[in-house]
């Protein structure tokens, strides 16, 4: 298990320079999530155009993994339809081992290949205690979109 695999440069960048933090003027869907064990918090606001996420705001506090995951997620889902987002979420959760899978679509070697930046979170999988941190934003987004 290598710490370097978890604390990749791109993760620390998102932690220190989180994207899409500005509150939205018009909110169509929102949810708050927290991880009572470690205190991580995330608040998500979504602006919809039909079923496309045309604006998103992700704010919170917590460890680098939870905050970076939230920031990267906001980038990944912006402009996507709810169906596309469900697919990304599914792929992400499979990569993290949150959803068990023997789905051949996922590349064994690089199960996050379709996720771009988010693939950097793969290293977290080796730290079971921290998987919930990475997952928090995603579960919260699901709640916002399917209240």
């Amino acid at each position, binding site marked *: 298990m290598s*710490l370097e695999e978890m604390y990749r440069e791109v993760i620390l960048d998102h932690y220190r320079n989180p994207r899409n933090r500005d509150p939205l003027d018009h909110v169509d869907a929102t949810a708050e999530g927290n991880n009572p064990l470690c205190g991580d918090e995330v608040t998500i606001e979504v602006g919809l155009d039909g079923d496309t996420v045309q604006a998103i705001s992700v704010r919170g506090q917590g*460890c680098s993994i939870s905050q970076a995951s939230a920031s990267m997620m906001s980038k990944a889902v912006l402009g996507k339809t709810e169906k596309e987002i469900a697919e990304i979420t599914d792929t992400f959760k499979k990569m993290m081992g949150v959803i068990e899978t023997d789905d051949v679509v996922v590349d064994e070697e690089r199960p996050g290949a379709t996720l771009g930046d988010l693939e950097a979170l793969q290293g977290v999988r080796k730290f079971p205690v921290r998987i919930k*941190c990475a997952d928090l934003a995603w579960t919260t987004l699901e709640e916002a979109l399917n209240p």
Partner: protein
Amino acid sequence: MTDWAAIRADFPILSREMNGYPLAYLDSAATSQKPQAVLDAITDFYSTTNANVHRGAYSLADEATRMYEDARSTVARFIGAQSDEIVFTRGATSAFNTVAYGWALRHLTEDDRILLTIMEHHANIVPWQLVADLTGCSIEFVSITDTGRLDLDDFHHLLDEDVKLVGASMASNVLGTINPIAEIADAAHQVGALVIADAAQAVPHMSVNVYDTGADWICFSGHKMLGPTGIGVLWGRPEILDEMEPAEGGGEMITDVRLDGSTWAAVPHKFEAGTPPFAQAVGLKAAIDYLEAVGMDEVERREQELTEYALKSMAGVEGLTVYGPATAQDRVGAISFSLNDIHPHDLATILDQRGVAIRAGHHCARPLARSLNVPATARASLYLYNQESDIDALIGALAEAKELFSVA
């Protein structure tokens, strides 16, 4: 001269490796490790003497009862009390709730106030909030100074005749601060308030005499003082325990149960409904025997030495902030800190990879965390089995953490 290396060797878990490194266990404020003597006492009890206490007219039950009551006397002697002032509970938290339901619920009204310190553990906050909810009484909090000490001016300012209960920790599990409990109790008694002291971080680490504290009740846990989980202690002044109602009802706490009501057994049995944690009491006695063999003064001295070493070493780490008193004086070895912008959970994970076990979070003291304006801190906490090398491992791992986080 105590042989601290030999003491450490008495704790089987401390020879364990963690992620390829020797385990540096620095989370004793959360729970302590156990010496072999405590494990043996528990196993021996179950293997030779186990029977329900206070119930049987046969020899085995009599032996078990004697051992249970002997544990009670041992606890009593350890804190300068009488046996029948010692109530065994599930833990410190349960002890607070026993007072909340057995006294506060029946004594407090809308006009009354409870005064707590802002550095209290949730165990000395939430039970009073439950009582406030049921009785309408109100709760206020005494703040702390910039150096992490209780703000005594604020305390005296908030204390008046409406205050019926003052709750204060003898030592903070976050800041390490030792509070002047006797002075607090004195002032409280002058306005007619009773005092409940949280001794969960005090009794394990220093010699405590309940009467010297001036408090009316004292609560602590066995698992933080080398004993097993599942047992804690409520000490109370006999005249107060006497007039309290039981919190829980059940077997063993009655003199009679009639269809239209029951009468209570004498203190302390009145507060021990059902089968008590008697095997855990035997384990706690073994823990106290162990601590007394070392000597509580010696334990305290050693921990001060280690705390001083830790504070000094941490002062040398650039970017590190300690919350709480910066010197080992009037503090215990629970040291909360942060390092640059590295979140405490990241810190804990990184340290863990080097075998160093510390805690990260609000440490069950969110009001304090809010008042410090830090949602989470890292905390290293010490006990008699720690050694300088544990602290060196911590400092080394902190340097690595900085390295890791310096990339961006």
